[in-house]
């Protein structure tokens, strides 16, 4: 197993470098440049050119790529053009917020998706199955930004106006008076801010997991060893949860790895709508400002997270399926 992980990590290095190089070139091809932010009659071309020189944008692509690669390999991500501070700080500020959101969403997505899927499989063609299928399909088809706005409309704006006992905050990760709260107050404050963005991400992706789990369960449940388990008198609960579920989960675990990129692209919208100061926001702003160093760093971080996610899925695969051995 250790050998397998080492091989995978080493194999990921050229992949990530290729991704970074590709992004660098695509960025260069995109029209517009960061100095153009200062679009105003008062900025004469001399100042504009000076800015471009200060940012190093006047050099040819190959030179800039060489410089970038050199400092990148030594761990120097450079300075953000738009925020005028080290890119490493930009990423370190935003990454924990995104990871918090992503980990909560992945956990919830997995739990909700598998529970619903199992329930549907056990009650195949029953009312519960049909209703959950319709609901699942609905969430699966909805774009995450629409769902985000609807959740905000109902559970924040309307909940507040109609005087519901619980109205969730629409934006941010903490309240403005967070510093003055008790430890318990701080915890619930953070939790309540997490509800809407995490729910949005969860609902869209959990629907897919549920469909998948249901299909797998139905296949497994028809197999001989399940009949054997039932025949030897095991309670249905044990049959489903212990024997059938474990085998159904094998492909679902892989699915979670594959969903990581979807999750990260989802955060771009969700973070923007809920003003969640994470990587999605950073990358969104950086692209519209043509802030190349930040775009490079953030997409590299996302790419790395996806590679790690996939590796994790492969490892989990071996955990849930003893037949699989990596050597």
């Amino acid at each position, binding site marked *: 197993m250790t050998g397998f992980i080492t091989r995978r990590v080493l194999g990921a290095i050229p992949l990530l470098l290729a991704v970074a190089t590709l992004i660098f070139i695509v960025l260069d091809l*995109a*029209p*517009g*440049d960061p100095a*153009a*932010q*200062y*679009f*105003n*009659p*008062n*900025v*004469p*071309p*001399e*100042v*504009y050119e000076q800015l471009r020189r*200060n940012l190093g944008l006047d050099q040819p692509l190959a030179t800039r790529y060489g410089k970038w690669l050199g400092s990148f390999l030594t761990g120097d991500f450079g300075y953000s053009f*738009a*925020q*005028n*501070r080290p890119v490493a*700080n*930009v990423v370190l*500020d*935003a990454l924990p917020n995104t990871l918090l959101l992503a980990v909560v969403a992945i956990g919830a997505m997995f739990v909700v998706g598998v529970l619903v899927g199992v329930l549907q499989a056990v009650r195949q063609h029953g009312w519960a199955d049909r209703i959950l299928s319709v609901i699942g399909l609905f969430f699966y088809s909805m774009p995450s*930004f*629409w769902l985000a*706005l609807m959740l*905000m*409309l109902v559970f*924040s*704006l*309307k909940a*507040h*106006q109609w*005087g519901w006992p619980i*109205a969730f*905050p*629409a*934006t*941010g*990760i903490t*309240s*403005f*008076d967070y510093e*003055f709260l008790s430890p318990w107050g701080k915890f619930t404050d953070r939790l309540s801010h997490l509800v809407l963005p995490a729910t949005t991400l969860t609902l869209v992706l959990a629907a897919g997991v549920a469909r998948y789990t249901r299909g797998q369960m139905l296949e497994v449940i028809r197999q001989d060893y399940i009949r054997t388990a039932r025949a030897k008198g095991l309670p249905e609960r044990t049959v489903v949860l212990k024997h059938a579920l474990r085998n159904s989960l094998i492909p679902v675990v892989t699915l979670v790895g594959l969903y990581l990129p979807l999750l990260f692209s989802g955060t771009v*919208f969700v973070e*923007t*709508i*809920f*003003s969640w*100061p994470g990587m999605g*926001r*950073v990358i*969104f*702003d950086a692209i*519209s*400002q*043509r802030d190349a160093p930040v775009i490079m760093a953030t997409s590299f971080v996302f790419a790395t997270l996806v590679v790690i996610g996939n590796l994790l899925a492969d490892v989990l695969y071996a955990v849930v399926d003893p037949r699989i051995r990596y050597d």
Partner: protein
Amino acid sequence: MKQRSPASAASVSLCVALAALSAGCGGDGAPESTGGTLVVGVRSDFSGFNAITNSSQYTDELIKYALFTPIVQYDESLGVRPWLAESWELDGDSAVVFTLRSDVRWHDGEPVDARDVAFTFERAKDPEAASLLAEAYLSQVARADVIDARTIRFAYERPHAQALENFWWAPMPEHRLADVSPAELRNADFNRAPVGSGPFRLAEWRANERVVLEAVEDFPEELGGRPSAERVVIRVIPEAATRLTELVTGGIHVDIDVAPDQTDQIEASPDLELLSFPGRTVYFVAWNNLREPFTDARVRRALGYAINREEIIAALLEGHGAPAVSPIPPWSPLAPAVEPLPHDTAAADRLLEEAGWLDRDGDGVRESENGAPLRFTLLTSDRALNRAVVEVVQSHLRRVGADARLQVTEFQTMLAQFRSREYDAAFANWVLDNFQVGTAPFALFHSSQAEIAGSANRTSYGTPAADSLLEAGRAAVTPEDAAVFWADFVRLLKEDQPATFMFWLDELAGKRAGVTGVDMDPRGEFRGLADWAPR
């Protein structure tokens, strides 16, 4: 100097969706006892708080009204009044001597003195710093001489009107920034943790999340004294619909950036109040004067007649705008009393016929003598307002037989094309960064700028008559003299129509009814921040 970041296509459609669904909501009173903390929502994060390198609008306002103390300040009639400088003396037309207050201190306790002012001037003037301060304010100022700790003399390049307005900027602390090289100023650590001199100090800045300001207790009484709010939290909330939700639910007390289609909702709510004031952004259609058919002033004027500004202001801005005739704002003391071209399709038809554009094949689009149709692309960025306006303009032009093909692209793409003059016609906007009347017209329409790659004169307009008026306007020493030249220039601009100026967009903001002291005007949204107080 300032640039609003363009709203994305996705985000715009979202605002519309939520606004439509939640229209007409009432909302009950939110608990607003926040212990002297006022919460403000803005659309995008600030950039570094350094007057020398800053280029964004709200950052500039926080520098001038909250964190630092400018040399002079504007009063409500846009006259210059003493601020950090308690008095000044004009040395003829060629120089000004400022005497600084003795009671303004940096937040680390050091006094703000003439050396700080001179330091800021020198750094801004250094080409390596690529300072926009230098371009916006100091192009006519040649030299600074420190006479003593409280006295400084500035020599002008040449006499000009509105000369005191060259000093609406805040000095930066020399003792904190002297070691930073000019090219590195933009990335200085100071910019994110500044030592200021204004009524507020920066207590916390979490990127993309919030900026926290704390009142400075001993800020001089004559400059407003201690601010009303103990703490001001400025939260970054990019989505307009989300900001409004927070305003309704009490998560913020003031929403700095309200969209025109949200005004009904704010006005309908007893808890909320709408603030509307004339802005500094002018929208216009630029005609590429080097390309057919816009080489002919008659064609440009005809299209100017064809566009119905009033309809656009009423329908798309919900009335929150004023017709524009030039880049001189209507509320400026020097604004000439010249009306824009009226909406007159008959006049447009007449001019186009005169210029040889007739609908020869009866397809509704005019052709020139050699059969070339009156067809061109109209370029704009993908902001919702820009998109809506070009669609209406297209229909107006269609009525006089001109066929505008719309090209709507992402902001940076549009800008690259516009800057390099690779366009036929473009719908764009300018944000004025100060109240000096001459700067924008000169940069936009002087012939010396027309040849320079990437300059602001993107229409490539330039005539001897316009040049001499622009030069005379800038050289005039008294405002009265200058006003005469500017009036003539605007009349010429109206006749030649190198660009068709459309409207000045009002700035819109919302606040909760309990918040007091909020008063905004063209000087900026954050102008009165020190007076804002939660209930």
